[in-house]
């Protein structure tokens, strides 16, 4: 393992993780559970991208659900108005999200991080308000008024991946693998960004902004680049979401959804590589428990989020890393000749 570089080790781990996820449908036959795993994969992908953006690039964007929705709405509108198959509209949705991110990024990303958070939040809210309050009908489907962007109800019942015809009762397994594929793309992209040249640039900018800038690193340009990349994969997840649930509507913009995914990033561990995946799994379990206790979902999410910020600011990944290092330190204390090498390895790990 020691010959492998940082990025290669993470890529190998990603391949193993994806392979494990791919075998799950053979063991899990219960449709509800499979559906929940699908939701987990969708949110894990969004959380992973958000972590790249906020944890590594330092852009605190609250507009991630806007990019998700651009993807969803593209699939929803293309399916409803043009009857397009999601296989065609999904990539279009991802590209449109990236374009939206480019425009917003150029306008906002020069500003200090608090401004970025507030502006992106306001933009999402504005888009939602415009969609929900649209009074004009674009079409009249059997007497039902449908505004151009779906109004308060959004779009539903459009074409999905088409596995219902192909796989009959097992259609959800087909959907499962499409969503797993989108998570795979998102995960690999995040690893390449975090541990590749872009990530190096962000580490340099984090260490010393002035020095990095004087060595010719253009902070705004890097930030816009990563904003666009993460929006592309967030939009891809959104379009896959729409094609799976056959739904795209203004409820995607709601504050509780945003905070749930933010909680996944924070609980998992901001600035880590694998934290958002852990966080997404943990929050899915929490939501499931909260549902059983009489729908205290949002309260539970809020309380857990606050507790983690207060007690474990580095999240599950940070706490796990600390325990692992303590364990290693104990072992290497027994065998001093390995200790030196291990210590160096952990030092670089901490720096990541």
């Amino acid at each position, binding site marked *: 393992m020691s010959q492998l570089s940082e990025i290669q080790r993470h890529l190998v781990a990603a391949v193993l993780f994806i392979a494990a996820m791919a075998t799950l449908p053979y063991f899990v036959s219960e449709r509800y559970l499979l559906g929940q795993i699908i939701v987990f994969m969708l949110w894990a992908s969004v959380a992973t991208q958000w972590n790249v953006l*906020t944890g590594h690039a330092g852009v*605190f964007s609250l507009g991630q659900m806007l990019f998700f929705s651009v993807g969803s709405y593209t699939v929803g509108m293309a399916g409803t108005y043009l009857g397009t198959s999601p296989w065609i509209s999904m990539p279009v949705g991802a590209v449109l999200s990236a374009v939206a991110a480019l425009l917003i990024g150029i*306008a*906002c990303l*020069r*500003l*200090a*991080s*608090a*401004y970025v*958070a*507030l*502006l992106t*939040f*306001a*933009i999402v*809210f*504005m888009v939602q*308000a*415009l969609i929900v*309050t*649209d009074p004009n009908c674009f079409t009249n489907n059997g007497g039902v008024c449908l505004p151009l962007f779906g109004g308060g109800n959004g779009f539903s019942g459009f074409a999905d991946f088409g596995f219902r015809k192909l796989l009959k009762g097992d259609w959800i397994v087909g959907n499962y693998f499409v969503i797993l594929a989108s998570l795979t793309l998102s995960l690999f992209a995040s690893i390449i960004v975090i541990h590749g040249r872009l990530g190096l640039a962000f580490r340099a900018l984090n260490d010393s902004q002035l020095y990095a800038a004087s060595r010719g690193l253009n902070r705004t340009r890097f930030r816009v680049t990563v904003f666009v990349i993460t929006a592309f994969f967030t939009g891809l997840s959104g379009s896959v979401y729409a094609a799976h649930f056959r739904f795209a509507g203004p409820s995607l913009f709601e*504050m*509780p959804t945003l*905070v749930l995914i*933010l*909680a996944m990033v*924070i609980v998992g561990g901001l600035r880590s590589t694998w934290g958002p995946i852990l966080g997404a799994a943990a929050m899915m379990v929490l939501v499931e428990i909260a549902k059983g206790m009489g729908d*205290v*979902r*949002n*309260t539970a*999410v*809020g*309380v*857990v*989020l*606050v507790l983690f*910020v*207060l007690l474990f*600011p580095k999240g599950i990944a940070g706490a796990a890393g600390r325990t692992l290092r303590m364990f290693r330190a104990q072992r290497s204390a027994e065998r001093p000749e390995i200790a030196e090498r291990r210590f160096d390895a952990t030092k670089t790990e901490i720096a990541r």
Partner: protein
Amino acid sequence: MDAAIQIIITGLTLGAMYALASVGLALTYGTMGMFNMAHGMFMTIGAYASYSLSSAFGAPLPLALVAGICAGAISGSLLHLLIVRFMLHTEDFQTTIMVATAGVAIALQDLILKRYGAYPFKQPAQIEGSFRLAGTAISYQSIVIVAMAALLIGALAWLLTYTKFGLAIRATAMNQDAAKLMGVRTERTYLQVIVIAGVLASAAGILISSLAGLSPAMGTDPLIRAFIICVVAGLGSVTGAGLAAIMMGLFEAAISYYIGARFGLPVMLGLVVLILIFRPAGLFGRMEVVRS
């Protein structure tokens, strides 16, 4: 002429409420670099507290008002004592405090939803009637709103400019360490600032609910407007936030009148983005207040 008066009246009423909502937000950011996502919940809590008191116990209007404001002050101090206090010296305070307060906001909103239900109520603390000025009907309600906002913001301005207490807040906002060295108990100043923000926001919440009704999500819309106002003014600029709020109110009233109510916010936001492209620190912000 009628239209102009109408726009000015509506605009001032809106502006007064926005000013109450955003001045506290600007003050907390200016003093401690904390952007409070739960600021909208102060408004909701204030509104629901005065609603509960006047509907359940039939309390008279002034009492309900005072109770709502007290509720805002209490929730502000609880927020500080339970959460903010422990986070003040952690790294990335600006980001993590937004995350934590966002968590507080959705938990509280969920609890209010469970307690009162999603159905919007009418705020019973109301003043009926109107008088006519140059052919335009002006409700006593909007006069009270403007008067109350002016009173509270005037009191805040007096506190900040003429008292030792205000001096301590301003000193902390300028430079925490220097203020500490001069004997200012900055920790206590932070608590005071959040309580002030809670008081102003809950007053704003009560006034807003008297026009728009009560609902668990009622704080979101004014919060977003307060965000935009603070961004335009330059984060942390308190006077700027007050002025920008009045400007925004008038502007929004004009847009609602001529184009349509649903375009008020989008046009405002577009304008803000334009302003920021040319003045990255905001209209009233100094470059050194927030490093961009």
